[in-house]
């Protein structure tokens, strides 16, 4: 009897234990179970190439992969500062004469590519091949600017600062660890010109038809071979490499049958699997030492990038744990509410330094324009200038920000300069002095009344019910732009402007066709580097984005100096202030707001810190852990 009871008690306690065990098993949250070493990122567009230096491969989606698989001399951090990556190497100006400007790039010792080949300065040489127009012509690879024939290396780097100013061939030190490049004049933003490393040995090997990883001696021989070919400018050998470089990296699939030479990396991760249009899986690079050390406690061993083009789908995927990080540069108030209500994620909103929206007013003909611009804003007369100013005064910038931007980022304010980044010390100093304050003084009703008074000087019949000045306002046909234009049109009407709304499906076609179909245009600018010369091309009288006929000799001098002289931070601030003053004085246009961004990520994931520019989410992969 007793034995039976004992058995029963044992059975009961065993059952209880089982129940407890099964219950506790049920409580494990997704992040604790095993997916713990994986981060799944979102890509809102296609990954099309493993080479981000070709013109076609240079997209932000490919760059995300590039930032995980490659480390160079610098990267942007979350404060939009350019951080020097001393683990990879260093750079210094070694000569700074009027016509002889030399920079020395030194690669830190002891680094390896993921196949074990040592990284040295030879790996920096490819930049010269793909950025110098002269090299391409001299080596018989073709003129990159040719209208018919594609050059040997189908690069998107030609025709830029490097190609325009580099002199001769870069020289390599005897220990092969440093590279010296000579330019024909001092270059501002020279830090941004730093060559990125490429595994040249793998390109040499692939151009010889090799299909797998080679022994270390073969690799080093190939690396040395590249230097010889580079110096000798051997057309045939370079052309073969150019084919590999230009098209070999454009893949639609990566799996075990992919040539591993294509995947060699010096970043934290190596591409492991890829299905075009669907997803990419990257695994940790065991030989990584080209950047800050990765976390050792609960580290990230796998990164998956899922391609999701639909925003709602991405938000729901985050909620379900299908992705760990969501990021948007065009967030809506609704997105923010949804994301902040999710129990499993943390949400950060930021003002992005990378993009801002602005109004541009036509002044005269753009170069090459077929018809003549004769709208109310045309010319440099006092009348045209006053009307432009009146229009800008009546533009309800605060209302636009309050209605459309604040629901996403509650402390947003109108952007006040075209040159400095929102919120920096320079921004605060310059906007206080540039005269832009006039456009935020008092209430909007007061500013509109002031604008109406100006308009009445030229159109005596103008009143808040009669709008004699006829204008056309062009902008892209999107929900946000249409909402903004509605606010602006309603307000400027009270100042005497009768505005026709022109929501264009092809705004840039309209702008770049150089015609007179509009008087005011609204769009955004995106920046991919923070530089001394950024946005000068928008305001120079011959700038490629200046199709509004803006021209001012004094401004041209200032902008030329920002583009061409090495200046101290103080000088840059002063020049930008002077430039801003001229633009505001001429009433050519006003910035509206800096675009907000939103990032939401799995609560358990540590270290996500989005940068406003550069590789937004992935720049600090080394800080990630669970």
């Amino acid at each position: 009897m007793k034995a039976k009871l004992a058995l029963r008690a044992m059975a009961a306690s065993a059952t209880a234990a089982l129940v407890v065990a099964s219950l506790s098993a049920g409580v494990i949250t997704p992040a604790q179970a095993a997916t713990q070493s994986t981060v799944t990122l979102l890509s809102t567009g296609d990954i099309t190439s493993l080479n981000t230096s070709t013109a076609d491969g240079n997209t932000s989606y490919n760059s995300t992969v590039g930032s995980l698989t490659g480390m160079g001399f610098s990267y942007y951090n979350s404060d939009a500062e350019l951080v020097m990556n001393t683990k990879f190497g260093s750079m210094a100006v070694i000569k700074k004469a009027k016509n002889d400007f030399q920079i020395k790039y030194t690669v830190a010792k002891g680094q390896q590519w993921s196949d074990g080949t040592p990284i040295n300065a030879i790996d920096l040489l490819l930049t010269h091949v793909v950025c110098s127009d002269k090299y391409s012509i001299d080596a018989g690879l073709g003129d990159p600017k040719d209208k018919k024939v594609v050059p040997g290396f189908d690069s998107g780097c030609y025709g830029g600062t490097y190609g325009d100013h580099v002199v001769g061939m870069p020289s390599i030190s005897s220990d092969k660890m440093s590279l010296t490049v000579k330019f024909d004049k001092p270059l501002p933003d020279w830090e941004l010109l730093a060559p990125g490393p490429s595994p040249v040995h793998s390109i040499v090997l692939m151009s010889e038809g090799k299909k797998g990883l080679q022994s270390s001696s073969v690799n080093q021989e190939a690396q040395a071979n590249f230097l010889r070919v580079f110096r000798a400018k051997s057309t045939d050998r370079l052309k073969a490499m150019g084919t590999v470089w230009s098209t070999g990296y454009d893949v639609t699939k990566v799996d075990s049958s992919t040539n591993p030479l294509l995947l060699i990396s010096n970043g934290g991760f190596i591409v492991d699997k890829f299905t075009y249009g669907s997803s990419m899986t990257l695994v940790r690079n065991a030989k990584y030492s080209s950047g800050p050390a990765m976390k050792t406690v609960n580290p990230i061993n796998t990164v998956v990038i899922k391609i999701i083009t639909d925003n709602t789908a991405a938000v729901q995927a985050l909620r379900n744990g299908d992705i760990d990080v969501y990021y948007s540069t065009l967030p809506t108030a609704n997105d923010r509410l949804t994301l902040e209500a999710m129990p499993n994620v943390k949400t950060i909103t930021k003002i992005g330094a990378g993009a801002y929206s602005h109004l541009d007013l036509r002044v005269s003909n753009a170069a090459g324009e077929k018809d003549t611009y004769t709208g109310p804003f045309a010319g440099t007369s006092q009348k045209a200038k006053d009307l432009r100013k009146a229009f800008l005064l009546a533009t309800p910038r605060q209302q636009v920000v309050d209605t459309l931007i604040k629901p996403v980022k509650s402390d947003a304010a109108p952007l006040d300069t075209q040159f400095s980044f929102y919120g920096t010390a320079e921004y605060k100093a310059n906007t206080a002095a540039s005269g832009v304050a006039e456009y935020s003084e008092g209430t909007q009703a007061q500013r509109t009344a002031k604008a109406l008074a100006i308009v009445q000087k030229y159109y005596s019949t103008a009143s808040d019910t009669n709008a004699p000045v006829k204008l056309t306002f062009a902008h892209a046909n999107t929900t946000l732009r249409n909402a903004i234009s509605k606010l602006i049109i309603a307000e400027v009407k009270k100042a005497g402007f009768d505005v026709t709304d022109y929501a264009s499906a092809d705004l840039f076609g309209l702008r770049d066709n150089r015609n007179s179909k509009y008087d005011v245009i609204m769009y955004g600018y995106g920046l991919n580097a923070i530089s001394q010369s950024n946005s000068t091309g928008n305001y120079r009288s011959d700038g490629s984005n200046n199709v509004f006929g803006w021209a001012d000799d004094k401004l041209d001098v200032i902008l030329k100096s920002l583009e061409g002289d090495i200046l101290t931070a103080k000088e840059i601030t002063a020049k930008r202030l002077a430039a801003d003053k001229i633009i505001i004085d001429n009433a050519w246009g006003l910035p509206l707001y800096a675009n907000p961004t939103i990032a939401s990520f799995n609560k358990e994931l540590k270290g996500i810190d989005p940068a406003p520019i550069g590789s937004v989410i992935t720049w600090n992969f080394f800080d990630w852990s669970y």
Partner: protein
Amino acid sequence: MFAYISRRLGMMFVIVFGASFMAYNLQAYSSNPLSIFGESTELNKDFLIAKMIRDLQLDVPPPLRYFSWLRGIIGGLWGDFNLGLSRSDIPVSEIIGQAIPVTIRLVITATFLAIILGVSVGMITAIRQYSRFDYVMTFISFLLFSLPIFWVAVLLKEFMAIQFNDFLVDPVIHPVGIVITALLFGFVIAGFVGGKKSGFFSVFGGAAIFAGIVLSYLSASRWFIEPSLGIFGVTFLALCNAVLVIQLISGVENRKGIYAGFGTAIAMAALYYPLQLLMSASASFLNVIAIFAITIAAGCGIGFIVSPIDRRTYIRIGLFTALLSTFPIIVDRFLREFSEYMNSDAVGRRPIPTLGQANDLLTPEQLNNYWIHGLDTAVHLVLPTIALTLISFAGYVRFARGSLLEVLNMDYIRTARAKGLTERTVIVRHGMRNAMLPLTTILVNDFAGLFGGAIITEGVFAWRGMGQVFNNAIRNYDLNLFMGVFIISAFLTVMANFVADLLYGVVDPRIRIRK
């Protein structure tokens, strides 16, 4: 016949040529690839613009550029077929080659389900015209017809993925939930089943109690995290199948038919354990085929034994019962893998994904396991398939209903009734068969349409099929890619029309192709 076919083929060629010329020019004129430089502040913008003009031949007017594209197509005649390069320098044929299988995988189950469910429901509503069931189905199909798929997708993801995965943490259904679901289920079933008012309440009560018991059992046994049908579930479903097949083929009044059907169902139950041997972790698709072969052989054998008279009828009963009842056996095998799949590292206890084609984190071992790999495909397919089925189901219901109603009003149906055939024979043999004729046309066209993809569904579920390739081609001004998808869809559509016309002549003796 030869002249007819060659004339049709010639016309097809002209249509495809003309359509592609128009599409090419419309797309080329309506888009401006250079607009991506609008927001750019790149220092070498001028070079990049010149380069794009060179690479995309933007300096050649579109009507002329069309012919350089056409050359690649015509090159197919001498084995030099070339759809050109996409904007990202990847051959268009490679992108499309990857997209077609994805699209087919996504759409084919949903299309079959929608056809089978839609046509059968449509025909039942026609037979029971103006009954409660007819009204309910008419209401439901119009409701589904008017739902936008992206919204359906959002709801499905919220309730069937996110909430369901949350529910799996502790898979106990609240008693109130059980009662409400049971009542709802009873109401729906009672709505489906026709009959008088008293019948309505007894069906309603029966169905509600049945659902209540099943749900309580599922909840108490934590079925949702360790699901299986088990031998009882398989047997129950086999018996249901047997009833259905008997009803359709011989009618319940035929005793031999009942023997054949129920005999097969019992044989299925008996085969349940032996068949498990064929479904080990190392099984492959061949094993599944072998299982079907065995069960079908058993079904046919039973049909053969039942009666020497009218053998074909009973063999058919056995065959269809076995065929339908094999699915539960296989589904049961997949379900029993669910708990391991769900608890694996790759899945992390949230088994139903809101999007994607496959789990990227499955280990090679899991990928080699037919059941786990299949389950992974299935959980990724479940939401888009439901969404697509719901949306296209309605069209088939309305079409099949109208078609059968028209046939049932024909003189030959009256003749069939007059000569004393049973109502079952009249409807199944004379009604349904003839009602299927006009359906051929839309079925063939729908299958051709499969290759065009489902733009919105693929987008919201992040599947890169033909629809999304097409969508991206338009958004990125990728003319070659656009034309690649277009030419395939155009060709298949024209081809499908042609095949439908030929088939029509074959299935309907009244229509003979003119000489």
